[in-house]
């Protein structure tokens, strides 16, 4: 730890640069790279400067216009203009709010980058100033580049992946989140031109009175019940199955495990679609039951048509899907439990039940707490199991969500199928809020913040 502190202590911050820096250092906040240029780091300084000029040109050409438009999200409607020469009506494009929103967000992102550059330019200039004052050597280009493969290796390795995440995960997320504050929706045909509406959508969603609220709360409730039941049923059944197969009297352990693991190996959408077909009113399961005489010749069990049946069905299907995963992981962990624990328990005369509750379960809980939270999160967002089997059905006539719909599948239906984009975005945010609260609470009370360096 000591070496680390020492390394971090020699740190040039932007604030120090402004407070204690020379005039040249301070100028670097306005003319990026000034410090580098004067200090002898020509290429680096020029790079800074080029990027700055690029940003300025963009801002003057499009940036400020985009930002201005972002305030109103556009107000010019598409117009029909009579063209005398051709004697037809021609359409003149109006504003398209979605594009304005996207360009606005991209411009904001570029401005954010500009701020980061101001900071980094200041830091670089201050670093050169300090090095010169100390009389130390200012690194030249070759040294800087080779440092990218040594002390700054993390920058080299992370640049592209983080760029990818920013472009394909974070920017789209911000774009989607910002839709939650607009009236971009099929309602009142606001699909081309829409406006900011503040927290209006959130209010509508959480109010108990409105039609949206009356759908939201039951769906949220079912999502939480589903996630809890799905997570713990998989956990305990998987654990029991693993222990059962591990029992020393069971022959051909590998074969049994293989049977279960085989179901993971096959793509989920295939198995789920198959199960859906099998559970239809005329599907294989009902036919089997009829042939066995357990139900009448014309009867079928309402697997996805009765609300309670459907809910139990999806949970059972999820057990079918999830238990093999648990089996796979638990088998690995069980082999890691220190055998001395069991030895001493046996010496003390503990039976199998006591060993299970006092050793196996606590150990598994400790190791698997982070995994359980991840599974819970995964289950709240478990799109496939619901969408590919029950499809959220059965659905009450006056509602957009069915009895087995989770927040995610409802989000899908609202956006992709029904174009209520704003409400969809709000639901996404509410899902996030729910998950954040649950994970914070569990982490706080579980105390199993696994030390990642414990085994080194």
């Amino acid at each position: 730890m000591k070496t680390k502190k020492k390394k971090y202590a020699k740190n040039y911050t932007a604030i120090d640069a402004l407070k204690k820096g020379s005039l040249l250092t301070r100028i670097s906040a306005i003319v990026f790279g000034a410090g580098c240029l004067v200090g002898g780091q020509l290429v680096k300084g020029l790079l800074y400067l080029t990027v700055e000029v690029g940003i300025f040109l963009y801002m003057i050409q499009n940036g400020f216009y985009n930002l201005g438009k972002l305030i109103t999200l556009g107000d010019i409607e598409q117009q029909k203009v009579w063209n005398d020469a051709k004697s037809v009506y021609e359409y003149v494009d109006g504003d398209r709010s979605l594009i304005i929103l996207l360009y606005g967000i991209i411009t904001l992102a570029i401005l954010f980058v500009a701020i980061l550059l101001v900071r980094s330019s200041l830091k670089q200039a201050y670093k050169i100033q300090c090095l010169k004052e100390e009389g130390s050597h200012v690194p030249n280009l070759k040294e800087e580049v080779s440092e990218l493969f040594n002390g700054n290796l993390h920058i080299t390795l992370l640049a592209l992946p983080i760029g990818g995440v920013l472009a394909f995960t974070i920017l789209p997320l911000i774009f989607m989140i910002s839709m939650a504050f607009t009236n971009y929706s099929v309602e009142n045909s606001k699909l081309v031109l829409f406006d900011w509406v503040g927290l209006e959508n959130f209010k509508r969603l959480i109010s108990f009175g409105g039609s949206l609220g009356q759908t939201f709360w039951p769906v949220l409730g079912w999502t939480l019940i589903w996630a809890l039941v799905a997570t713990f049923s998989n956990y305990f059944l998987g654990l029991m199955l693993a222990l059962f197969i591990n029992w020393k009297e069971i022959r051909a352990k590998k074969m049994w495990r293989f049977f279960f693991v085989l179901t993971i190996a096959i793509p989920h959408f295939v198995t789920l679609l198959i199960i859906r077909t099998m559970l239809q009113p005329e599907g294989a399961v009902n036919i089997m039951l009829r042939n066995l005489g357990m139900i009448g010749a014309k009867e079928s069990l309402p697997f996805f048509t009765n609300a309670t049946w459907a809910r139990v069905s999806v949970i059972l299907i999820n057990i079918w899907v999830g238990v093999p995963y648990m089996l796979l992981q638990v088998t690995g962990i069980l082999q890691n439990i220190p055998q001395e624990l069991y030895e001493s328990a046996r010496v003390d005369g503990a039976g199998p039940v006591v060993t299970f509750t006092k050793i196996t379960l606590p150990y598994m809980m400790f190791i698997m707490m982070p995994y359980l939270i991840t599974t819970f999160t995964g289950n709240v967002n478990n799109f496939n199991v619901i969408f590919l089997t029950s499809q959220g059905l059965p659905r009450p006539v006056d509602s957009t969500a069915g009895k087995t719909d989770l927040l995610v599948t409802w989000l899908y239906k609202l956006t992709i199928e029904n174009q209520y984009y704003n409400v969809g975005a709000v639901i996404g945010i509410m899902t996030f809020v729910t998950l954040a609260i649950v994970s914070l609470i569990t982490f706080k009370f579980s105390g199993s913040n696994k030390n990642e360096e414990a085994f080194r």
Partner: protein
Amino acid sequence: MSGFHKYPLHKKVKIVGAHIFLAFLSMIWLIPIVWVILTSFRGTKGSYSSTFFPTSYTLDNYKKLFTDFSVFSFPKMLFNTFLVAIVSCLISTFFVIAVAYTLSRLRFRIRKPLMNTAMIIHLFPGFMSMIAVYYIIKMLGWTAGPMLRVAMIAVYAGGAGCGYHIAKGFFDTIPMALDEAAMLDGASKWQVLTKIIMPLSRPVVVYTLLTSFAGPFKDFMLAKVLCGPNRDYYTVAVGLYQMLDVEYIDQWFCSFAAGAVIISIPVAILFLSTQKYYVEGVSGAVKG
């Protein structure tokens, strides 16, 4: 079976019972798989059959996939899927390994904030950003034509850096002493990575390659939203899902089963050959 006959009767009953119970459970887990294999060889058409076992067997369902292009072109789907899978698996493996290595073995100021950000991103519904990507791609005009493939690759691989956990778990288990010794001998961090850690990390690289290669074969959501009605660019998953549409299910159901069998075989082999690493990654096994 040594010693089994020496057990008292009640223990024998217990053991036999346990095996019967396991066989019963395995049957529940295996029935859907057996059923789809049987259906893929079924002679009669339609999604419903009045018996569990088909009354006649045929290879026509497989033949249909490769000869009947009136609605779905299975070879084209296979080609799309392979193309997207190969390119995106190369990119995402690089991303994942780079991020995992950096977060596991290098120490720098924003390391913890980065990990926390990744955790926060995971709390948003996965396809929330995907829907936005869809709008963006639509605005770029990429939702039709060959650019769709680029879009799919970008979406599969672009955000891959966030899924570094299993690979990081692997790197965490390599003793730091190796790095330190090499650095004492004057190796740069880059040399430590390429000369020391990478040769040790073949399993996790293979694991990442194979799992990300399998991704486009398993995912159907994303490809479905991106492709919309563009049949020419369907991946196998979307195509198979579409075969169950009310319009086509009667003609195509058994071919759906055949297609499912065809793509399940390679995916299953990929999975079974990598499951060891998966288990180790999640359970944090420590190598001695």
